């Protein structure tokens, strides 16, 4: 079942000026209940513009966004419903922390939802745990935390609203490998424990391979490719043509194939690659 569907979305920036630019040129896509979707594409491909339509921050020039089958632009109420159900976390969300304590910052969203004090407290404690920080952090000032911790607090603030759809714009940008792995694990956990949909943007194909069920590739405001990680990554040459990186392991496989080694399907994980190489060696009787 689709939670959010986007129908033939068209949107341009700086309309009526010499800088007019079509950011989305008729994009239609479905986001289904319970899946993790990665959105990839080079800078200027329209990824962030698309995300900002999903909770009605932007209004399309034409086309529609449906949340649970209903247009979000239909009435003020439908837009409000959508905002509480679709949690959008911008790039570098740590720059948006503003409260004096971590507790207050995380409680901001739930408070706006007019939940009871008990419920707000429960959600704050649950979400700080979700993002892998202890309750000791709640009384600290968000500005005393490290970059990675701040980011997790900012995400906790969105999770506390328990959105049916969690959207993260480049959640791992600027994090070190450990911080990155923690964040990817968080995405996976949130999805598995709540059954809610997660949509995230990434430039890192290895990150995408690690958690996404489905991949959507945008190029120049249009849908270029979509499918499972396998389906999309096996088209390594096409991805490269769109100005995207392929995962490093995929490029190892592409190079091996060029050198005349037939190892079957193009692998993109260390383990998959290892198994494929061993299997091929066994077949050749080399091991």
């Amino acid at each position, binding site marked *: 079942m689709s939670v959010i569907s986007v129908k033939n979305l068209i949107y341009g920036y700086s309309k009526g000026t010499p800088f007019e630019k079509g950011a989305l040129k008729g994009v239609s896509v479905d986001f289904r209940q319970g899946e993790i979707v990665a959105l990839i594409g080079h*800078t200027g491909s329209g990824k962030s513009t698309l995300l900002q339509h999903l909770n009605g921050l932007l209004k399309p020039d034409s086309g529609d966004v449906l949340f649970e089958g209903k247009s979000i632009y239909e009435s003020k109420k439908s837009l409000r419903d959508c905002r509480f159900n679709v949690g959008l976390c911008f790039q570098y969300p740590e720059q948006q922390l503003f409260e004096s304590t971590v507790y207050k910052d995380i409680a901001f969203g739930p408070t706006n939802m007019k939940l009871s004090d008990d419920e707000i407290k429960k959600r704050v404690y649950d979400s700080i745990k979700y993002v892998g920080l202890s309750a000791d952090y709640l009384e600290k000032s968000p500005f005393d935390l*490290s970059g990675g911790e701040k980011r997790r607090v900012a995400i906790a603030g969105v999770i506390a609203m328990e959105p049916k759809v969690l959207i993260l714009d480049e959640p791992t940008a*600027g994090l070190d490998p*450990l911080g990155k792995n923690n964040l990817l694990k968080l995405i996976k956990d949130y999805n598995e424990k709540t059954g809610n949909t997660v949509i995230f943007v990434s430039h890192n194909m290895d990150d995408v391979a690690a958690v996404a069920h489905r991949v959507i590739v945008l190029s120049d405001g249009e849908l270029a490719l979509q499918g499972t990680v396998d389906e999309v990554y096996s088209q390594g040459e096409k991805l490269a043509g769109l100005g995207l990186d392929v995962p*490093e*392991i995929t490029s190892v496989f592409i190079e091996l194939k060029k050198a005349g080694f037939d190892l079957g399907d193009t692998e993109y994980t*260390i383990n998959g690659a*290892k198994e494929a190489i061993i299997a091929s*060696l066994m077949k050749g009787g080399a091991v």
Partner: protein
Amino acid sequence: MNKIIEFKNVSFSYSDEEERVLKNLSLDFYEGQFTCVLGHNGSGKSTMAKLINALLIPTEGSVISFGFDTADEKNETDIRRNIGMVFQNPDNQIVATIVEDDVAFGPENLGIERSEIRQRVDEALKLVDMYEYRRHEPHRLSGGQKQRVAIAGIIAMQTRCIVLDEPTAMLDPKGRREVMNALMKLKEDLGISIILVTHFMDEAVNADRVIVMNDGEVCVDGTPREVFTKVDLLKSIGLAVPKPLELAEALRKSGVDIGGTPLTSQEFVNEYKKFTETRGQ
């Protein structure tokens, strides 16, 4: 090789109560080298970068940059004339409304003659491949383009060393490649020393030297090959190794040792070829 920067028993803490971020660090940097500094968040690598050009002063010990002690305020101008710095966020480093004005900002402050500035700005922009954008407004540029403008601003001051603190962290893959290519060119064409602080292992693969920081100390120091072969050590301190090497390592642990230390996919293919050939005989 000429020593350009010298850390002598340097310790640093941001305040009296806080733990030391750098712990008795002794380290030299050499002229004309591309040095990559790796380490996870909080390892002290950015602090070290800021100590190089006197943005920070050691709590204990001393840093000598191009012969000048950074602790002496008198030396600040001389140090910064030799060492330029580029930071992570491209939007925080642009001061002018036109690209070429921004590049001219540094040399203007040095009191250089107008015609000379014109020439330096043009050359610097050509070197980072941004000449055709010289009359553009910086805020309409991509992240990678902005970073290259920031780098051009430093070259125009004719500094001998550039320190970059995670300059590609906020860029997409294309922007990262553009910046890395520009840096390689500065090293090759002008012999400028580069000190690059980064999280991206693949940026370190082509460096002359890789320094890995952990917990305020140097943990490994050597050529990329020497450093990356310490797979288990790097993983234990939260760092990744280049994927081709990780794959070779995974194979080795499963009893298939293809040999060598492939850092790139091409190197992996070469090792694999050699391996299958010897097996075939």
